[in-house]
Structures are given as C-alpha cells and as structure tokens.
C-alpha cells in the first residue's frame, strides 16, 4: 500500500515535471524576439589579464537577458581566428590547439543558468595556463546562447517535428590574455599609399600595420605632414585598433587640407608594445592646384596679349595718323608752292 502510494506520488511528480518542462519549452521555442547582451565586448585588450605559465587567474563577464521571457543561457569559450582584414573574429570549432588558443584553459562557472527577463547574470571566468604555455597573447571568445529551440550541445531541447532550420544565437566577449615571459614585439608599417599628385585636398592615405609580435598590439599612430621647407605643419592622430599577431591590419585617413602649394612629406610614426617601440614610414606627395594655376596663367597671358594688341593697335593708329598728317602737310606745302609759283608768274 505504501509502495503503491510512493510510486503514485513519484509518477505524478515526474508527469508534472515533464509537463512543466514542455510548457516552458513551448514558450521559449515560440519566442518572437530573443535579446542577449554581452558585457563587456572586450576584456583584457589593455593587457590587464596577465598570467604566468602554470598559474590561475579569475575574472568575470556578464550577460543580460533583454527578452520578454526568462531564458536558460549557456556560456561557452571558443577559440577564434581573425580574417585577413584583421578585423572579424571568426569562431572555430577545431579543438586542435594553436599558438594563440585560449579556450581550453578557460572554465566558466556557471556555464548554464536561468536569467530572468531584464536581469544580468555574472559568469566567473577561471583561466588556468598550463605550465608549458607559450608567452604572448592568447585569445578566445566567451559566447552566450539561449537554449530556445534546440542545440547540438543540448540535444534534449532539439525541435524536430517538421522541416526546419534551428538557430543558435550567440553574443560574446572577446578575451585577451597575456602569458608572461619573454615576448617578442615587432611591428612594421607597410604599403604607405598617398596619391603622388593632388590638386585639391583632402589628401587620402592608407597603410598597413604588420604585427610580427607574439602578442596583439594597439599602436598609437600619428601622421605628420612636413612642407617644402621641412617644417611640420600638421599632425593627424588616427584612431587605434588592435592588431592580431602575425596579421596585417589596414589603417586609413586623410589630410583635411584643401589648398596646398608644392611638395609635402607625410611621416607615419607608430609607437607600440610594452616598451614604446617606434616604427616610421615616409612618403612624398604634391598638393598643387595645377589646373587653377594654369587657368590663371592663361588668363594672365591673355590679358598681356590683349594689352599688347591694344597697344600695337594704338601705336599703329598713331603712326597712320602721323603719316596722314605728313601727307596732308606735304600736299599743303605742294599746293602753297604751286600757288606761289603761279603768283610769281
């Protein structure tokens, strides 16, 4: 009797649990809008997360549920690669360790948690560097995804009642960890490009920062403009960006000068690394409104020509008049002489 009561109670409890999970699941699957916020977007880019080989450090990230329903959010660490433009972190599922990988050293607690609507949850990030960790930068992304409609990670939640594409929404924090030790830092400015000749500004320029360091760099870049006499007339400070190790990243800007006269030199000065190393690249260019100058010259020459023509015309007319006067004077004198001759006769 007691056993049957126990079984009945257990059965009812399991049935209730199953039904409630189905209800929750059904609500989540039909969620029209799912919103997650990762805080912060980057962690440790200022080299603040340092760890020695064999050492363990701890930090934290946060995730906010902006959806209208409570979400079960799973957090996971993934390695990433950076695409050729040096900008887009692309998650990789390959578990094979690479020189810059970090994900396998990271433990997240809790890795799965329920977050109420509008609430922010904290995830502790424990990073344990192995004793043979290579000094330099190591990178991963900590992403958060709601278990809405299914997941390869959690197949129990899979929706498969008809043909469907099931989505995994992930938003994450990029994690930059520095393993202490001898770290090579070297970077170069490559491909400084400025139009050799520009009539009117602004003058665009572009170049790449090639980071050959064991760690990402965040260079401070100034472009100095020198005039014909070697005097610095302007410094343009460019917004900095992180450059992944052994990746070249594009930088571009422009000199906002409309009018210029003559040759100029642009000098890109980059400081980077923990010891403030410098790299410099220069290029010369002309900023000269040649069309305008030619037009002015033509106008000037035209004016001179017109003046000369008018002067010539005036001189010619004066000569003509003088000739006419001389001719008339000659005629008059001839007539007078004829008249005198007749009178003498």
């Amino acid at each position: 009797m007691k056993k049957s009561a126990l079984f009945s109670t257990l059965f009812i409890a399991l049935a209730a649990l199953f039904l409630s999970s189905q209800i929750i699941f059904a609500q989540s699957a039909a969620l029209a809008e799912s919103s997650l916020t990762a805080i912060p977007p980057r962690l440790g880019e200022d080299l603040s997360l340092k760890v020695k080989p064999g050492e363990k450090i701890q930090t934290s990230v946060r995730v906010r549920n902006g959806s209208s329903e409570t979400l079960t959010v799973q957090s996971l660490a993934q390695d990433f690669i950076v695409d050729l433009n040096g900008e887009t972190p692309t998650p990789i599922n390959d578990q094979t360790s690479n020189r810059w990988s970090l994900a396998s050293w990271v433990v997240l607690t809790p890795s799965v948690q329920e977050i109420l609507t509008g609430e922010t949850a904290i995830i502790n990030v424990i990073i344990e560097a192995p004793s043979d960790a290579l000094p330099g930068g190591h990178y991963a992304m900590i992403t958060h995804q709601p278990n809405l409609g299914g997941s390869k990670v959690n197949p129990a939640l899979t929706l498969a009642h008809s043909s469907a594409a099931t989505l995994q929404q992930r938003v994450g924090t990029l994690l930059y960890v520095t393993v202490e030790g001898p770290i090579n830092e070297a970077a170069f400015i490559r491909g400084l490009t400025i139009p050799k000749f520009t009539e009117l500004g602004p003058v665009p320029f572009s170049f790449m920062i090639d980071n050959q360091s064991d760690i990402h760099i965040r260079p401070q870049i100034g472009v100095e403009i020198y005039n014909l006499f070697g005097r610095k007339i302007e410094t343009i400070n460019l917004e900095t960006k992180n450059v992944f190790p052994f990746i070249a990243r594009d930088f571009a800007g422009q000199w906002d000068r409309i009018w210029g006269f003559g040759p100029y030199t642009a000098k890109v000065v980059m400081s980077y690394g923990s010891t403030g190393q410098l790299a410099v690249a220069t290029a010369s260019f002309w900023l000269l409104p040649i069309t305008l100058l030619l037009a002015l010259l033509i106008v000037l020459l035209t004016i001179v020509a017109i003046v000369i023509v008018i002067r010539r015309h005036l001189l010619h007319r004066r000569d003509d008049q003088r000739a006419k006067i001389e001719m008339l004077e000659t005629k008059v004198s001839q007539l007078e002489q004829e008249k005198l001759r007749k009178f003498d006769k």
Partner: protein
Amino acid sequence: MNLKRLLLVNKKSVAVIIAGALLMGVAVMADQSRAVSLTSVSATLSNPRLSFRGALTSGNTTGSSIVIINTTANSYPSTSSAQLVEGDVLRIGSAGGLGSYTMASTSSLSTFSITTGLSAGHADVGDDVISSQSAAQTVRFTTANAIANGRFRILVPALVNDAASSDGIPDGGFFDLGASAPTVTCPSNANATYDFFSVAQGNNGDATASAQTINGLDYHVFECAYSGTGAVGTPFDGTTNGAITVTSLINPAPVTNHTTGVADKHNIIVQHLNSSLVVQDTTTVGIGVIEAVKVTASVPAQITFKIIGVAKATTACGVSTNVMTTAATVPFGDVPLDVFTNAAQTLTVSTNAVNGYSVTTIANDQLGRNGGACAGDPTATGNTSCIPDSRGDNTTMSHTAFDKWDANATKGFAYSLFDSDNSINNGSAEAFNYNIGSGSCTGASYCAKQFADTEGSQVAQQIFGSNTVADNENLFVCYRVIPATVTAAGNYENFITYTATATF
C-alpha cells in the same frame, strides 16, 4: 436714611467695582486672545541640500585626485561622500589655508575624486573638507493682530558660538550666517497699514548673528520694522504682499546621528513685535534639509544581439515570406517541390564598443533528413536524404560567392540579406544583398549564398558588421528552400549559428 444712602452708594460702588473688574477681566482675556499665532506661516529654502563638513582621514597624498574622508560616525557632521554630487565646489585644507577643488565622482562612501590633485598642505589627517550649500529662505505669513508701529522678526537656529556661527563655514545642525551678513528683503508697503522702513531709516532687513536665545538655543535674528496701524489678516505671502526673504544663509551640515536620506528638521520662529519690542504673536515652523537625491547610472561597454521572428506574408528580400519564424526556428513545414518556400528573420546589433562589431554565421551541416549528416558540400546529387545547398542558376554559388537564384528548377537551400532601412551605415555593412545586381547576380531578382558548413570544414562567414558604434543596426536574413523531386520524404533540419562580437 443716611445709612440707606450709604449702602446704596456702596452698592453702586460695588457694582462699579465689579463691572470694572469684569471689564478688566474681559480686557485681559482680550489681550490673551490677541496673542494667537500668525497664520498661514511657511518657510521655504530655495536649495534644501545639506552642506558638507567633514575631514580627511589617513591615506591622502599631495597630488592625488582621490580624496579619502573620515567615516567614523559623528566624528564630524559629514561622514559620507554620498552627500556630495559631481560639480560641487569643495574647500579642503586647514583653517586659514583652504584650497578650492571641484568634485568629480564618488567611488565609495569614504572615497571620492576631484578634478585636480590635492595641493601641498591639503592632504593631512583632520584637514577640513567643506562644501557649502547656500539658499534663499522665504518666510510667508498672515498677521493675526493689528499692531501699530511694530516689526516682524525671523529667528533661524544658530550655533552658540557667535564667531563660529558667522564664519562662512557650515555648522553641524545649524545655519551659518556667512562671512558677510546676508541680504534681508522686507515686504513692500502694504497700503498705509504697514509702511516698512527704508534701509536708511534702519530696522529694515537687520541681520544679526546668534543674537537671540530662547530656551537655551541661539538664533540668528532678521527683522523688518514698519510704521502704520497694522491690520488683522494681512497676508505677506509673496503674492498679495511681499514675503520676507533672507538670501545667502549657509545651510546646516548634518546633525548628530543624522540618517542618510532622512531630512534634518530645524525650527524657524516667526514673531510679530509691538512698538516696545514686546513679542505679541509667535509661530514656529519646521524646515527640512536633506542630501541631494543622487541619480546614478553606469553604462558599461556592451554588445546586444537580437534575433526577431518575421511574420508570414512579410516582404523581405523582395519576396513575400511563406512561413512565420520565431527567434529560434525557421519552420519551413511542408515544403512544396515546385515553388520556393521563403522565410526571414531580423538580426539586430547595438554596441558602444569602439571599432564596431561583426556578425558571422555558420551552419552545422546542410538540411539533413531527421538531422542526419550530409557529407560534402553540396552533397552528391544521388543523396536523397539531404536538401543540399543550392548551387545557384549559374552554378557558381558557394559559402563565399553569391549567385543568382531565380529559377525554381535550381534546387537546394541558401540565404540572402537585405538592410531594408539602411540602418548599417558604416564599414562593411551587409556582405551582399538580394538585389546586388553585379557579378553572377547581374540581372537577378534574388541573389543568394550558401551557409558555411561545419561538416564541410568551412569557416564561418561575416554577414554584416560595422567599424564604429551601432544603434539598432539590423537586416533581414532571408532563407529559401526548394527540394529536388528525388528528395526522400521526411523532416529535414540543420542548425545555424549567428555569432555577434566586437571586432578584434
């Protein structure tokens, strides 16, 4: 007879005496009833914030912009930096050598930041930390009696020590008169009944520090004298007639055992005196002084990623969608063989991260029957258990290259993009869009790409991004599917992952 007359006279005398006594009683009673309170009395402060008077504790250094104060309860009137707000003018140092600083922010109850570093001599233990709050105090009332040639007197709580009560340094629990006497503005004349003296006549706007003691408490005294008969019920409310205003009084610092967030109450006494300077009417009103309500908010660096389902029959990527999607699924349902099935979702990103964000996508595999694997990309034509990725009308479509896909004879599954409201206005924007009209998509009404495929060892592809901060930058991701006739009946599914992060 004489006795009778005498008795009669005496009776008259007694009557007169009794009548006189009664009259005197009435007069006394009348006098007593005249000593009622002034009515409609109020005192208001233009700035009800408490002044700050605390002191430095150990740990402060010259040149540092971090200031640490003594937080031992009741050791000084002010023991919490919560009382201060950004922009407050502070005086820090020892008496006679106070330096001026500006409050920047608070980081804890004991620590706050100033905009410049502490100067030499301003970082010693016990140095004063002062921030004065001044206010105009306006007193309104209505007279209760007609008192000729009288005066109105306002009494404000003051420190017993006369010098300290008027040194311009806030006093704990008391108003300070200030280093220079405050200005008292008396009411303008109320007809002939209240003809207030001019300043030249004296007794107009007199302010005297700690000049009156009542029940052992000292008060600053402010007076406005007048000539005239006075009148009952004359309102000095700032509307009918002027009120009395005292400017530049320094608000008290917190009282002993002050509770943060609870106002300290101080009694202001309003008196009406007669020509002999005898108080005729008195009313006491309370006035509260409290910390500023500090509104705080922190804006962390963050990135928000939303996926929003799109209703059926919505126009997205130039076509009308055939199914409703949710944030989690694109349920194609029963897919016909002869026409496209279109669906869409909206992806949205907001971030304050410098250098912007990037959104990438990758699928675990192509659409496989009951979630089964689909080897190759696209799968071999003979594999009837997969809806492979479309190759496009020009057979050039891949996960990195877009191609035209207008013909329903071209079978498969692919996606397209469209920033319908041009919300992505920086950087790389969307990788392509359905009507890009170039390359293989020249002349196409629908241009698409395959999803990168983990099963095929492909790398996730960026679909949109920005190189600067973003405010609800969004686009449609459009899905299109049409199975081949050889495709086996069943449910087909895959998993598509969208990942939003800051750029590196």
